[in-house]
């Protein structure tokens, strides 16, 4: 049973350079977002959020219909839908396809879904060359690491880290100027784009009435991967569906703004199958892999199915005071931040990291900024309850459970509650009035009290509680 990764947390918290990198990058993203969703910049913002929430809700509540509509539309345009129950099926299909086409080189657009199914590792094991083409993902791939943030994969790195990495892995001269580093990546990747046999992408949206895949990018790698190779494979969770192309008028206004503070990203690609007769370029084959991988299980939870509304914008990460302290690698799975905290337990089971839903102060900043209004704090609370129930079944956390049973009993017996309070104030009494306690005498300096005093001072229990003082006050007044 995975315990809280305290040592790793401490390492991250005690690394000033990393703290600075995380804090400033997320701070910048927050500020950029704020400017473009303000009432002046986007007066309809709240209305659009409501509309997007309603559209996602409707889509998921009628998902089977839209899935079938999507497949018909893709097929009608000369593409092919491949239904994948789990990661294994998606990987298998791609492997078989590559063999069939005698394809060896794959270029990829950034896709959290492909991270989820560990696509690269599996394909590489099959002897295929997979190159990430998004600059941040390219860097992460060279580093043999995983993304630090849903939208900005290399958020934790400085230009010096990148310089050292490029020299070590690409053999180029050390250069810490981001412009030059970008040019290096451009040169390397251009060759890869031109030579690739298969382009693999995710999908920001799947359009049911059109059978289309929508990709939003900034660098142009998305277009490269879906234009130059002969085959385009898009891998997307079944929850990415929206009913109509026209609904993009709502969603596209929310996604870029929430993610990076851009009213629109540089490239929005609406990809509707292989090239048509007469078209000069574009893929000759177009596949969309519809991935379940546990999503239908989430769907069955009437309340928490809202988790599937997520647009993967990363706004919740940027605004989360916990993410901004521990960063993306301290989350147990590929999805980090508040959305990761509710998605991971539901996809992997609460036992995968029972502590995760508790690693939040429930401040609610995430729900405030979510473009599709996912009530993340509510689901964290529900997952906490589920975690405790699971712990109870496994005979764990006995002491804590007992503690709360006792607490509930005391709270239902006011005289006992008062007596305990009075006793406590004797033990933890003020030595100097108003002076807080740095630590406690050894026998009681354990558990929660020790955890408290490890970071801050403890208040002394006042000699008399409010109710005692109130009684005295009433007595004095009645004289």
């Amino acid at each position: 049973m995975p315990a809280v990764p305290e040592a790793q947390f401490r390492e991250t918290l005690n690394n000033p350079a990393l703290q600075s990198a995380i804090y400033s990058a997320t701070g910048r993203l927050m500020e950029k977002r704020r400017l473009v969703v303000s009432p002046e910049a986007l007066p309809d913002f709240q209305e659009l959020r409501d509309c997007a929430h309603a559209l996602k809700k409707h889509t998921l509540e009628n998902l089977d219909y839209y899935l079938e509509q999507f497949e018909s539309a893709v097929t009608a345009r000369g593409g092919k839908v491949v239904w994948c129950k789990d990661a294994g099926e998606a990987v298998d299909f791609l492997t078989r396809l590559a063999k069939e086409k005698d394809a060896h080189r794959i270029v990829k657009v950034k896709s959290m879904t492909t991270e989820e199914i560990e696509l690269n590792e599996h394909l590489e094991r099959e002897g295929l060359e997979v190159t990430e083409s998004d600059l941040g993902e390219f860097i992460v791939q060279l580093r043999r690491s995983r993304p630090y943030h849903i939208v900005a994969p290399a958020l934790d790195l400085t230009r010096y880290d990148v310089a050292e990495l490029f020299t070590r892995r690409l053999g180029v001269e050390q250069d810490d100027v981001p412009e030059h580093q970008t040019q290096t990546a451009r040169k390397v990747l251009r060759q890869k784009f031109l030579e690739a046999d298969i382009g693999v992408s995710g999908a920001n949206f799947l359009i049911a009435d059109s059978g289309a895949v929508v990709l939003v990018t900034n660098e142009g790698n998305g277009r490269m991967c879906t234009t130059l190779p002969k085959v385009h494979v898009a891998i997307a969770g079944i929850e990415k569906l929206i009913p109509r192309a026209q609904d993009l008028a709502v969603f596209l206004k929310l996604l870029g703004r929430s993610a990076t503070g851009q009213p629109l990203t540089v490239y929005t690609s609406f990809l509707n199958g292989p090239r048509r007769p007469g078209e000069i370029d574009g893929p000759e084959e177009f596949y969309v892999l519809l991935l379940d991988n546990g999503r239908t299980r989430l769907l069955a939870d009437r309340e928490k199915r809202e988790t599937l509304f997520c647009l993967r914008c990363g706004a919740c990460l940027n605004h989360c005071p916990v993410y901004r302290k521990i960063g993306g690698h301290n989350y147990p799975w590929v999805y980090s931040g508040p959305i990761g905290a509710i998605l991971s337990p539901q996809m992997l089971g609460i036992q995968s990291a029972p502590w995760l839903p508790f690693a939040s102060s429930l401040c609610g900043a995430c729900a405030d900024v979510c473009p599709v209004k996912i009530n993340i704090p509510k689901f964290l609370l529900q997952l906490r309850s589920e975690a405790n129930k699971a712990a109870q079944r496994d005979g764990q956390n006995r002491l804590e459970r007992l503690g709360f049973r006792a607490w509930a009993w005391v709270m239902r017996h006011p005289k006992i509650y008062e007596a305990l309070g009075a006793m406590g104030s004797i033990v933890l009494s003020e030595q100097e009035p108003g002076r807080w306690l740095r630590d406690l005498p050894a026998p009681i300096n354990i558990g929660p009290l020790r955890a408290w005093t490890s970071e801050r001072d403890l208040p002394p229990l006042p000699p008399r509680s409010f109710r005692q003082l109130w009684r005295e006050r009433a007595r004095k007044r009645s004289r």
Partner: protein
Amino acid sequence: MSQRVALFVTCIVDQLFPEVGLATAEVLERLGYQVDFPEDQTCCGQPAFNTGYRKEAREVACRCIEILRGAEYIVVPSGSCTSMITHHYEELFAKDPSRLEELHGLLPRVWEFSRFLLEVAKVEDLGARYDGIVTFHDSCHGLRELKIKDGPRRLLSHVRGLTLREMDLAEECCGFGGTFSVKFPGISGAMSRNKIDSILRTGADTVTGVDASCLLQLRGALSRAGLPIKTLHLAQILASQ
């Protein structure tokens, strides 16, 4: 015959910050209210609810509803305890129609302290005096669930001798989060220090808010850092003369 209000002080004020409860009562009495304190009150159940123990939370919440029966107004000097009742009890009693009905009758009568002053008593100037540079911390539940933002600032604007300065991180969580503070002390502590840095940047000598639990966290962190900045609940400043 003066209007009566019942005080739900909250367990944390009762046991750790009784002066906040007294200040709350004083302010209300000065406005002409007769303040009752239903003696059998203990807690709203939030600690258990937040730690995932819903059965235990429900037991305590049931009792809390019973205690608060009959009072026309219930004033609570805490944003998070108020919102526990007004925003989260619903989920606890979702399967209990009769309790739910009683809850719905209770909800309009439960008021967080600052909102009571502004929206029920309809008062902004309490004739208070406090000499100091004060910065206001926006507690998360108060801010996001009860929409408490301008209200306390308006109340503070009338306090004579008081200079109000805004923190750049006023809305950032202090890091308390109930049991989060002891389950993840490293993160909680780091968050509190972030907040303290923001307070320091204002040059304030006092930080205030509507939630004693936030003040517990902030004062604990300020004390550990050896900083002489005072933490006072809004009620204490408004009671000050």
